[in-house]
């Protein structure tokens, strides 16, 4: 048997293994999750530490956390990306300093973000265990993802647009607003998607920033339990919570998938709209 043949077999087997694992994971989640999943599960409050009842307050808290994270991180990230691509030369010290520190930020483990969020937002800024603390911690985590994809998007916008716009006497700001950002829109949306995905999937950074409380949050200063924290809690601390955890896991995965699809659909429409209207 030749090496070439052996390699071919091994590589196909690996691909098969990965796909097989994916399908196994997916069907496993569906089979166990669909048991408990119902409208009531989505709309009710959890009872008996989550063993029964639903996850309405938890989904709400998750949404608020992600929303805070994106509202804070998206403008900051976009501004940073624009500065890096449009207003600094790639060799400048400031630009390199910013890029380097973002590279480091991107690789900081989520539990470290949890420690930092606890020390900085909860205690130092006095926000306590709250959705705001959790959301801001998530914003720090999502920031490098948003910036990286926005930078990639803007760098891939053709230089001719910048030159042609300048040759027409347009400001850099105008070229950015009307030409470069719309061109980079798919990349921006993809980054936003990834950022939402990262924020929505996060657990470790939230345990000691937004807390465990599973009541319906009334303001962003309330503590709230994210869906991922709920799954963790049910699986580890609540005997007999597996069925609920399975359903919650399915909801989380489906939710992440849906958010991504919506984001993509919105960008497509936005881009089409930009062509005609001012």
């Amino acid at each position, binding site marked *: 048997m*030749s*090496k070439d043949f052996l*390699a*071919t077999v091994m*590589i*196909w087997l*690996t*691909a098969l293994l*990965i*796909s097989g694992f*994916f399908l196994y994971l997916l069907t*496993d*989640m569906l089979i*166990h999750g669909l048991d408990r999943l119902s409208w009531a599960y989505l709309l009710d409050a959890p009872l008996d530490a989550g063993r029964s009842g639903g996850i309405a307050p938890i989904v709400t808290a998750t949404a608020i956390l992600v929303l805070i994270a994106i509202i804070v991180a998206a403008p*900051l*990230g976009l501004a*940073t990306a*624009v*500065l*890096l691509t449009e*207003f600094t030369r790639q060799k400048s010290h*400031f630009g390199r300093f*910013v890029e380097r*520190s*973002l*590279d*480091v*930020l991107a*690789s*900081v*483990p*989520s*539990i*470290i973000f*949890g*420690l*930092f969020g606890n*020390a*900085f937002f909860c205690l130092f800024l006095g926000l306590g265990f709250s959705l705001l603390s959790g959301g801001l911690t998530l914003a*720090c985590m999502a*920031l490098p993802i948003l*910036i990286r994809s926005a930078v990639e998007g803007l760098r891939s916008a053709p230089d001719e647009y910048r030159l042609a716009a300048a040759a027409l006497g347009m*400001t850099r*700001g105008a070229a950015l607003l009307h030409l470069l950002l719309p061109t980079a829109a798919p990349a921006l949306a993809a980054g936003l998607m990834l950022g939402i*995905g990262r924020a*929505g*999937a996060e*657990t*470790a950074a939230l*345990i*000691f920033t937004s807390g465990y409380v599973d009541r319906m949050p009334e303001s962003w200063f309330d503590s709230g339990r994210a869906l*991922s*924290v709920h799954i*963790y809690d049910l699986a580890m601390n609540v005997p007999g919570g597996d069925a609920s*955890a*399975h359903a919650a*896991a399915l909801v*989380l*995965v489906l939710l*992440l998938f849906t958010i991504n699809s919506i984001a993509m659909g919105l960008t497509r429409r936005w881009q089409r709209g930009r062509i005609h209207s001012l």
Partner: protein
Amino acid sequence: MIWSWHNILSLSRTDSILAALLRLCALLSAAIVILILLFLISESWPVLQHVPLSRFISDASWHPAQGLYNIAPMLGATLLSSLGAVLLATPLGIASALFCHYYAPTALAIWHRRTIALLAGIPSVVYGFWGLTTLAPLIGRLHPPGVSLLTGIVVLTMMILPTVALTVDAALAGVPAAYLRGAAALGLTRWSMINGVVLPAARSGIASGIMLAAVRAIGETMAILMVAGNVVQYPDSLFASVRTLTANIALEMAYAMGDHRAALFVTGLALLAMVLLLVGFAEFFKQDAAHV
């Protein structure tokens, strides 16, 4: 005349105001990582003041309530589980990337890439939960208790596999087509071409991908917390329960006070140091790649 001149005169002003504003935002973004470092240090300061660093590996055990701070077993668990996961995920990830580039028909390659991307998007808590409810019982049948170093390694492998696969995929895409044509012109078999030309040409990219995967493995918390058993000990076999540094923080942070809390921040610093070291290596390989 149609032109409004005030608009034109304010040109450089609008652009420079915008630039200043953007600079401020960028400074803020860049400051986060410095803030993180500052707060980790200031929170660990109380214990670092009266406990020398050497005691974190020479104390009798990890009993922070009694002032014993040995994190060595947990450090070992972190390193072992990450090493195992990287050793498993590297060949799988490279094979997966090779499959997409040189083996699969286009449609299948697209489908495979999509699968990898979806795997990358699954939250770590879901991996952990799946490991706890499905994988741990399977391994427990082989050798109890099931929640063990091995389970941790397998789950971590699945989690970092997409990282390896995606970075290697990108590195393979950067291999100049001329190399491949040259190899094909010599009549090499597909595997000799890959082994002799493609992998050497892409080795810097592959190395930096492995480093990034190791960073993920070391920093991973939830999955390993849920499947590794969390006993503070040096593992005597693959089936022993272990507790990693990250899991330790997640478990004890909720009730830690005073020096105990500060000691947890010290473990956080240790984690960060390891990660920064690896990122430095990855950066080194990336620059190496830029020179080739």
